[in-house]
């Protein structure tokens, strides 16, 4: 399989795990020192608040909370969801690591109203045998600087 095809297969798998709310499966994709961020705007400025800024222990906590089954906000935000991941490009390559950019459109059927989430993800992936692990994932929502409804699932 070409590098491009392998990367695409990995991102599609991640998308399916997120869509199906298989949070344990999603967590297993991560490096143990992974960093997951959803900045406000371009991000990267130290000392500025983010929407999500998780080190690995906090990714684990996020997953624990999403899975607990007793969190109101999670229950309320829960809805069937499907996303399309596209425009996948390998942006850079170094030894066993590559940086991958992609876009997504996510629809969430929540109550009568369908929500739309749109953004760009940048993954730093590390080769792990035939597979990859996520060393870093940064998600740039197109509306990150606007007033957001609750984001109580994984993007």
């Amino acid at each position: 399989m070409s590098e491009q095809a392998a990367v695409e297969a990995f991102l599609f798998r991640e998308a399916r795990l997120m869509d199906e709310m298989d949070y344990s499966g999603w967590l297993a994709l991560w490096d143990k020192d992974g960093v997951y961020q959803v900045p406000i705007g371009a991000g990267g400025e130290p000392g500025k608040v983010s929407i999500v800024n998780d080190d690995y222990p906090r990714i684990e906590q996020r997953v624990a909370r999403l899975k607990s089954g007793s969190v109101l906000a999670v229950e309320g935000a829960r809805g069937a969801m499907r996303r399309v991941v596209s425009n996948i490009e390998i942006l850079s390559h170094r030894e066993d690591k590559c940086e991958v950019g992609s876009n997504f459109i996510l629809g969430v059927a929540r109550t009568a109203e369908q929500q739309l989430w749109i953004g760009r993800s940048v993954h730093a992936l590390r080769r792990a045998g035939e597979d990859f692990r996520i060393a870093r994932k940064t998600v740039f929502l197109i509306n990150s600087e606007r007033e957001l409804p609750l984001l109580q699932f994984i993007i």
Partner: protein
Amino acid sequence: MTDAPLAQDAVVRGSVYRDPGLFQRELERIWYRVWVYVGHESEVPKPGDFVRRQIGLQPVIMVRGNDDKVRVFYNRCRHRANLVCFAERGVAKSIVCPYHGWTYANTGELVAPTFDDGYDYDLEKERFGLTPLPRQDSYRGLVFASVAAEGQSLAEHLGGVTEFLDLFMDLSPEGEIAVDAGEQKVVYRGNWKYMPENSMEGDYHGPFIHGVAFDLYAKRTGFDVTALATDEVPDVIRSLPGGHMVEDYRGAPMDPPKRQPSAARLEYIAKLKARHGEAKAAAMLSTMAPLLYVFPNLMYVITHLRVVQPVSVDRTHSYYFPVMLKGAPAEINEARLSDHEFMFGSAGFVSPDDVEIMERNQVGMQARGDDRLYIGRGMHRERSMPDGGRSGMTRDETHLRGFWRHYVSLMEDGE
């Protein structure tokens, strides 16, 4: 208007959350009348820095002029009322209206109308500067403005709540906060009044809706926030004249975390002691700073200033501005920001439960039956305080009753 009062003693009418007519009345009677929080001076540190804000539904800007003074103007061009400032924040040597190019100094004066030779009278520039809010004042960097030309002074409006504003600002070893870490913005489908009500009563609802988050937080930091509400303590819940609400934890000390304090924490403690003396510093560090609500739109909650912004009767924006402590070791502020991100914003672990509750509240409120909400907890034991307010035990609803008394006094006087 219905005959029954909108709220009285332990009863609140459902219509206050639901009736578009009352929302309009709130704009006139509350938002366009009292002092409203606009922003903190540290958000505009340099000459020309500006931020866009709202008072009720009216757009305003807060801008620091070249003379270093912070002013609040209506965000409306004096020519034909275009939004003079579109960006949400930025730096402007001068403010140029995009429509026909009228240019204002960042101190407000009209510098240059355009094609002014075409006006058939002498356009007096002095008469066409940006319109300042009729009243503007500040307290320790918190800038307030009022759309009404007359009314109480800011000092009168704030009254006793400054004691509690001081308490959290004094967490800074320099006695100054910095609101310079950006902001999270949240929208919810519910009335604006749920936000202050819910934000100031975490001890009552906390165990029901935040259990998972409090647990995770204790595991991570060693702080057990539920300890604050294990026993009911007198005078934690405070209502102040002016509709302000406080959760004052000075009588409810927390166990320090069992783990060894970091070097940064020790340095921070030493700095607080140097500034405030052993006794006061120890008292400040023994518990959580008060949570407070300054009527009608400002809150301080654990890590941040929170601003509630009504959009319509059933739609509200909420802004979360993390508060950094000037003079504190970098690690202390980093930990504050990290705690903030853990708890707050759309993807946080705590406040989304509150927002979810507010949205469900708006739905529940559509069912009439007996259209009264009951806020009677602790009514039989509330105490009058020297500041003119009243106090109750940890989970009492004394402060909500104070909020509603003030609300009714504004909404129902001088029909």
